[in-house]
Every structure is written in C-alpha cells, then in structure tokens.
C-alpha cells in the first residue's frame, strides 16, 4: 500500500517520482480517495500544549459550523466531537479528488490531572478549535517563603 506522504520537502527526488507513479497507479485502480486521508480516529489533528497555568488543545477542523461542535469534559478526559458535511455535488458534476474527511468525528484527549474542569474556554477561529483549560489553583507552582 503506498504510503501517502503528507509533507512536501520541497526537494525533487527520485523517491518522489516513484511515489507519484504509485499514486497514479492506485488512483486509476479506482480505490476510494478516503484511503489517503488521515486514518479513522485521527481526524481532526490536534496539538496539545501546557503552560504554567493552563493546558491548551488545538484541533484543526476547518469548514464546520461552530454550533454543531461539541466539547465536553469528564474525569480528565476531553472529548471533541462533531460532524462535517460537504455541500452536494453540482449538477453534472464529477469528483476528481476527495481527500477531505467527511462525516462524524470524535477525538478523546487525556488531560493532566491538575486541570480544573470548571474553567474551560473554547474558541473556533479560522478553522482551528482552541480549547484552554486552566489548571487548578492549588497545583500551580508556588514559592514558599523561608522564615
């Protein structure tokens, strides 16, 4: 199975030419384009970061209506779910490529234990879902004065 390269290193190489050939062979074999998207359970891509007073989760989910997104938190597990619908194909239209994931998606992320589930903020900007979970006050690093 051809390993679909997700990045373009910008340097022309023999390997890329072979990759291109394999791509063409598999495409013409009529395999559905969805094989080339992120495998199930991996859409949307997320990046997770930690700072001193919050944990930040960024989900890369372009093209959805923010009202259909659901973000919930339970016992330290953050769940992001929603549905991405595609507009219908115009009349007499025909697809050449369908790489964008469509349908329902769910991602569950385990957050470190010291986050405060009541202090969560979520924003949807330019196709990125930005979730900020503040850490519990008691677990923030604190200087202890020596008498």
């Amino acid at each position, binding site marked *: 199975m051809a390993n679909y*390269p*997700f*990045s*373009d*290193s*910008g*340097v*022309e190489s023999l390997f*890329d030419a072979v990759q*291109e050939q394999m791509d063409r062979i598999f495409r013409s074999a009529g395999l559905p384009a969805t094989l080339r*998207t992120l495998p199930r359970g*991996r859409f949307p*891509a*997320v*990046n*997770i*970061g*930690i*700072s*001193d007073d*919050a944990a*930040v989760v*960024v989900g*890369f*989910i*372009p*093209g*959805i209506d923010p009202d259909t997104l659901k973000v919930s938190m339970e016992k330290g597990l953050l769940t992001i779910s929603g549905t991405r619908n*595609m507009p219908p*194909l*115009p*009349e*007499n*239209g*025909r*697809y*050449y*490529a*369908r*790489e*964008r*994931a469509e349908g329902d998606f769910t991602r569950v992320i385990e957050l470190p234990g010291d986050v405060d589930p009541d202090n969560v903020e979520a924003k*949807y*900007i*330019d*196709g*990125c879902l*930005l979730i900020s979970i503040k850490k519990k006050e008691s677990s923030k690093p604190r200087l202890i004065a020596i008498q």
Partner: protein
Amino acid sequence: MNERNELVVEPGGRSKEQRPANLPAVDIFEDATGVTVVADLPGVTKDTLNIKVESEVLVIEGQASVPVPADVRLIHCELREPLFRRSFRLGPEFDKDAISASLKHGVLTLQVPRIREAQPRQIPVTVM
C-alpha cells in the same frame, strides 16, 4: 492534473519554496463551467494566504497560525509544520484570469472556469 513538486531547484540554501510544507487535503470536482478546488487550510487567514498562477501551474500557499499564549510548551503535535503548500497543473482550457477564491473557517474554495471556447456545448443536428 496534480503536480506536487516545485519546478525550480535552488542550489544553495532553502528558498521559501523549499521549506518543508504540509499538503492540504483537497476536494476537486468539475462541472460544466469549470473546476472547483476546495482545500482544508486550518489556521490560515487572508493575510497569510498566497495563491498564484505561474505559466501553467497554480500554487496555493498559506501560513497557519494559532493564537496561543507565549509560554505554552508543545507536548503532543500532530500538525507539525504551519506552512501549507500544494500545486496543480492547469491545462490550457482554463481561464486563469478569472479564478475566484474565497476563504471561510479555514476552507479555501477556488473556482477555475473554463475559457468560453472550451465549455461543452451541444451542437444541434438538422435533418435534411
């Protein structure tokens, strides 16, 4: 129709065209008037998006940025490079001056119409 690699290889040092980039997922469909390309570009705004047509190649390039506070340390990363780039070869039947593009919620929709002469048309047949 897809041409992934850039056309010019620079000898020393990496130019902007050579930095590693992510290939955005695209949907491409065609109807009678032309081709529509829909690309997933999360985190890209109008200011960081660059669409250009050079001879027969259409290049979509965008820089993603997510507003996070400065002291955040990344502990899990699935989308590594913030740069998106993808190029396509356009045949001569497309009207490159009439390409229209719109960006909403991180999704770029590009409409490439066919030149008038190349649009499919029915020829009526008269029976003598």
